[in-house]
């Protein structure tokens, strides 16, 4: 399938604000391909984000776009979806936005299993504010607020989403560009909360401090880290040390929130 990115981008909105080598642009192209694959009618598609470099993504896309406050995207999106369940709702944002300040909204959206697709760009850092550590900055790494190395343990976002009740959870990296759109498309088709975690890179605030000499090096790290779930099943535990599993990590059929609420309405109306 040939993709026509131009028709998805709002006229006059490029160039974007992202630094050269930033992984967020790769994710945006993946999201466009996924929306095209699913033939989403952009007039009925809400793309909701919080605050951060990743959260600037919706502004470039020609759809019903909502750039909210730091961490609150999932909660705004819940309001949109509840009020108009016939809309397709996509949430996008960063690791800090989604799992620190917005962690509570994230897990509760997962718990409700509300039908939306959450594209979470995990670049291991607070990019926009200049590289402070996030709940996903690897322990020991340097950030502007961890000059002696990060003492904090990390969140495994995908595990968190599964634990919280999301019925579709997948993970890939910005290196695996063609897998991004496939997983997002699966997430869009899935009825329920779909979380697609995409590990990407922030050369400007994370790469620089952590001795990555180039974006290529950062991409190579992402490539080396990734082990597809099927392959991982055949590997001994020691081979999986420091690796992350990619692909569809979890998928199940379970009641979706707006459908459940439609039943509430029926009961209230005495049907």
């Amino acid at each position: 399938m040939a993709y026509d990115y131009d028709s998805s981008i709002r006229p006059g909105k490029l160039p974007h604000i992202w630094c050269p080598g930033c992984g967020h642009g790769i994710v945006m192209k993946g999201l466009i391909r996924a929306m095209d694959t699913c033939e989403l009618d952009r007039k009925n598609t809400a793309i909701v984000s919080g605050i951060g470099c990743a959260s600037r993504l919706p502004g470039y896309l020609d759809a019903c776009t909502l750039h909210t406050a730091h961490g609150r995207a999932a909660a705004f999106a819940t309001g949109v979806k509840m009020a108009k369940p016939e809309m397709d709702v996509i949430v996008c944002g960063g690791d800090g936005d989604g799992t620190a300040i917005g962690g509570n909204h994230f897990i509760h959206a997962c718990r409700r299993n509300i039908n939306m697709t959450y594209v979470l760009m995990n670049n291991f850092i607070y990019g926009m504010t200049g590289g402070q550590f996030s709940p996903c900055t690897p322990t020991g790494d340097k950030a502007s607020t961890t000059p002696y190395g990060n003492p904090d343990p990390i969140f495994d976002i995908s595990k968190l989403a599964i634990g919280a009740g999301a019925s579709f959870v997948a993970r890939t990296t910005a290196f695996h560009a063609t897998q991004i759109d496939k997983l997002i498309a699966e997430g869009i088709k899935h009825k329920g909360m779909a979380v697609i975690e995409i590990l990407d890179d922030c050369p400007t605030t994370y790469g620089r401090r952590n001795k990555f000499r180039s974006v290529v090096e950062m991409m190579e790290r992402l490539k080396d880290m990734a082990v597809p779930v099927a392959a991982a099943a055949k590997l001994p535990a020691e081979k999986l040390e420091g690796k992350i599993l990619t692909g569809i990590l979890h998928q199940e059929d379970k009641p979706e929130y707006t459908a459940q609420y439609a039943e509430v309405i029926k009961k209230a109306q005495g049907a």
Partner: protein
Amino acid sequence: MAKKVALLQGNDACAQGAVYAGCTFFGGYPITPSTEVAEVLSGELPKVGGKFIQMEDEIAAMASVIGASLTGAKALTATSGPGVSLKQELIGYACIAETPCVIINVMRGGPSTGMPTGPGQSDVMQAKWGTHGDHAAIALVPASCQEIYEETIRAFNLAEKYRMPVQVLYDEIVGHMRERVEFAEPGELEVIDREAPSVSPEEYKPYDDTKGQIPPLASYGSGYKFHVTGLNKAADGFPTTKAELVDAEERRQIDKVDDNVADIEKFETYMTEDAEVIIWAYGSTSRSARYAVNDLRKEGIKAGLFRPITLWPFPEKQTAELAKQAKAIIVPELNLGQMVIEVERVAKGDCKVAAIGRVDGEPINPGQIAGKVKEVL
């Protein structure tokens, strides 16, 4: 035909008013003394095909309300004290993104957990200045169950008309007391819906004020694709840092209220024509003030009551006129001096201004007010 009447708690009256106004979305989080608003609406909204959602906290509740409003729904949240504090950032978001919504604040004491089951009126300045940045505010302060019903409807009307959040503040006393409430017949009270765009989706700009101070708001999912952000923005809704655009936008958002005070203001006067002393009181405190006026009149003291029903924008004109007419204005409030600061500002020394503050969880009684009047005169 006999009117439908009921003995209703203030919070219940609020919920009934919301339904009359056409509210179809409530996002909330339980907190005393506001919880009954949510409880009633969890039953009522699905009956009319509306949605009720109990969110994970008050921030989420406010977020869900704004999200729902952008799809065209009339959306409401209700909370108290700590919950209002949590909502502040997103109240500012609703201001700058010009998203209609209604926030009910059933006031209790504070700061922090304070006295959850006691009344307070200490959030009145917060209603104006709570969120960061310059912004306009509309806040209504009903004083009876009937008035809560009607002012909730008016709050939705103002929110829709002026494209902004409107707060309704009443204290625990009014929220929890029961009074006779007369329900309006359909069509009896005005119900305003936001203006829909008259231009095509291609031409639509969500903040284009060339045809008026309040740009029409399209709904998500109605054929219009547009961008909403909390950043300063140009008419097309996209972020800008151009000084002249930011300045014009900020000022328009404040002017839309300042220029329409006559439409937004609402107050009641009681025996003020010849009054030498004015009791300037709102909410439950105004009920005691009315008794005080009657008692003082019996003693030959020319007292009168000024009762704002719209608290923000502040009733400047009326307060200034009363300050010229009277020897003194007494401001009783269940806080340690908030609206009295505004009264002093506007009175400009034309008369004495004195405060009565109470924060012990008890109401201000008529005797306390009458005593202060005699002390000041």
